[in-house]
Structure formats: C-alpha cells, structure tokens
C-alpha cells in the first residue's frame, strides 16, 4: 500500500481534461492550495468543479478560472469573484447553484454509497424544477442524487501515511464529505506523520477513503474577511 506522493504535481498527474473534481473548502478556508496550483500549472481544462465557492479573483479556484480551465461550477455561493461573474454572464462558464446543505448531503450520499437522498431545501423554488418530489408524512421532499466525481481533492491539517485525516477548526467544512465521495481522493496535509502517530479516536476520515496523500508546502491560508476587536 503506497499512498504517499512526493508532492502536488505527482498526486494530480493523471487528472485529465474534462474530469469532474470535488474541491474542499468554505470560501478560502481549508482549500487545497497546493493541488490547485498544480492543476493551474498542468493546464488541463474543461473541468467540472463541485465546490461550495469559487475562490476569489487571484486565489483558490479563481486561479483556475483565470486560465479558463473550468467548464462548469456546481456551488452554493459565488459572490466574491469578478472573473467568475464575467465568464458566467458571457456564457463561457456553466453554473449550477445548489443549496449549501443539499451540496453537502449529495457529497455525503456518495461517500455512504447512497444513490439519492430526499431533502426539503428548494421545495416550491426554481431549484425544484424537473426534480422528482416524494411525500413523506405529509411533507414534500426533493429527490437529490449523490454527486459523481472522478477526483476529490481536499486539504487536511494532519494525515498519516495510511491516509487517515484530521481537520482543524472550520477548515473541516465540506472536506471530509468530499474525501469520502471521490473515486480517487487526493489529500494534501499540513503535517504528514508516520502511521501510528495519530490518535485513532481523533480521526475524521479513515484512510480507506484516501488514495493519495502528500505534505503540502508554503501554505498562504489567506483570510477573506479579517475581522478583529480591540483589546480592553
């Protein structure tokens, strides 16, 4: 079992143009910075990206948008990116808006081997258009399919050589769900440790879900809305 890769270039080497990718993160919090940089360098395109947000103009998925690598975004909120807006309005970029909880749960369903789930969100709205509705206990629910993705790309705080992952703070967000959902899951971690060093009680994603792991470098961990209070 060899899951450890030297770096991002090696870990993403076989992602082809046209692939469907899940990318973890909420805003810029917990995004796989090293893999995004490697994808930009590799220059693949026509990608479908499932990610809660689309980064900002010069960071995160915004870097892939600048290089016109993304064909379609599946997201819940994309408000912080002017290049995204330009491509969407000009029709270059296809966009599917999914309620945030639905997005998370469709990832979860994939990781748990469930083909679909029934959810309240979007009933009576345009999100419901064309979807099957089922009534349970007097309430209508939308049938929402599990996401199908070729690669899931996530960033964790710590990981071991067997692929066990631990996340930090709110950088966890969508990443464990996506890690569980990928046909091939690539995890970049801030700290890669030998097997046995992580407390089994603390592991968020067991290594069975993780196919490739490497220790990332030079994390910028950019803050989108730095908000502070004064002392005293």
């Amino acid at each position, binding site marked *: 079992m060899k899951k450890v890769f030297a770096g991002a270039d090696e870990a993403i080497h076989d992602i082809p143009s046209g692939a469907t990718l899940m990318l973890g993160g909420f805003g810029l919090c917990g995004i796989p910075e090293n893999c995004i940089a490697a994808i930009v360098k590799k220059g693949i395109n026509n990608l479908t990206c499932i990610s809660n947000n689309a980064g900002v103009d010069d960071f995160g998925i915004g870097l892939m948008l600048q290089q016109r690598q993304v064909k379609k975004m599946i997201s819940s*909120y994309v408000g912080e990116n002017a290049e995204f807006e330009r491509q969407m309005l000009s029709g270059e970029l296809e966009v599917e808006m999914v309620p945030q909880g639905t997005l998370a749960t469709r990832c979860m369903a994939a990781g748990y081997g469930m083909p679909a789930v029934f959810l309240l969100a979007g009933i009576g709205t345009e999100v419901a258009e064309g979807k099957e509705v089922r009534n349970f206990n007097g309430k209508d629910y939308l049938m929402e399919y599990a996401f199908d993705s070729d690669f899931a790309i996530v960033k964790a705080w710590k990981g071991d050589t067997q692929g066990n992952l631990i996340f930090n703070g709110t950088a966890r967000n969508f990443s464990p769900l996506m890690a569980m959902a990928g046909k091939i899951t690539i995890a970049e971690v801030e700290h890669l440790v030998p097997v046995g060093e992580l407390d089994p009680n603390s592991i968020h994603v067991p290594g069975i879900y993780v196919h490739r792991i490497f220790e990332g470098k030079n994390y910028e961990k950019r803050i989108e809305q730095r908000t*502070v209070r004064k002392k005293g």
Partner: protein
Amino acid sequence: MGLNKEQIARRIAQELKDGFYVNLGIGIPTLVANYIPEGVDVVLQSENGLLGMGPFPFEGEEDADLINAGKQTITTIPGSAFFDSAMSFGMIRAGKVDLTVLGAMEVADNGDIANWKIPGKMVKGMGGAMDLVAAAKNIIVAMQHTNPKGESKLLPKCTLPITGIKCVRKVVTDLGVFDITDEGFKLLEYAPGVTVDEIKAKTAGRLVIADDVKEITV
C-alpha cells in the same frame, strides 16, 4: 423615523430564550449577537461547521482556520464544537436549531420569502438560505420595511424568485413587529414615532392590527 439597524437587532434579541440554539444570517441578524439579554444563555450556530461561536478575535490572534459563514474571523468559547457541513445542515434539517434570523428582499403575507436572486442581476447563489428556511421551525426576518424606491417589501405575493414557502413566522422591520398569521401580517408593535396608519400605507400584503398593539421598547 423608525428603528435603526441596531434597534431592529435589539428588538429581535428580545425573542431569544434561555437554552436556544440560534443561527444568525449576514447583515442585521449578525448584530443580534451584541444584544443577548442578561441571564439568557444561547449557543450560536455557524453553518460552516461550528456551534458555540465566540466574538471576533483580538488583533494578531486571527486564525485562518476559524471563520463564520460570512467568512469573518471568529473565536471559539468554552463548549464549542466543530463538525462538517453535512452534520451542520443535518442539525438544521432535523429541527435542532431553535431560531433562525435572516434578512430578506421580500416577504409574503403567507410566510413565503425571497432573498437570493434578482433576475437580470448577477446571481451569487443561495448559500445556506434555502436549507435554513425549509427546515428551521422558527424563522424571524430582519429587514427594512420598504425598498430604496419606497415600495413595500411586505407583499401579498413575492415577485422575486422564492427562497422558501410558508416558512417565516415573524418579521421585524424599521417600522414594526409582525407575526405571520392566517389573516396575513399581524402588527403587534409599532416603532416609536411611527403611526399605525403609516404602516398600513407602507404594507402591500394583507395586514391586521393586534387588539393589544403597542409601541416597541428597545
């Protein structure tokens, strides 16, 4: 006249009860956290994966791995818990969150809400709003009573794309406090300096006046 944003937040804070788990949306709802009444213990939920949201960090103590749903840096407090996004919306969907406060562009007199999309303008997305309004058992909307053109935002029917149907329970605007009832908006309280007639004139949806209607105290 009417309430300013801080006063709207202060009035909504009066709705908080001891032991509530509360989700506060972006904008005026966020301000509610500043006015939690003394002796009332509430736990704030941030839908990106945190229960027990603390105040903003002191300068120099910001942590990129610790943000709220508005992407602002925040802190934890004793008792805080982190979780993934599926669990976060799972607890919302399962009715564990006692109160959700959010903003709106329009509210209809049957409790429909529109707050995510204006046709012809850039669509930023619904974020977690559709999940929250579909599932939360108690939803209070905080908003201005009229739009910048002076038109009522309390309507017989939403004109903008809907976020959720028949879900809003209470609306607090700069002019008054309204319950959503079978008879439409029910005016419970009016802002200081605002008359019931003015509220009638600025409310396009069905409006009834509570028998014991009174002035808001904040």
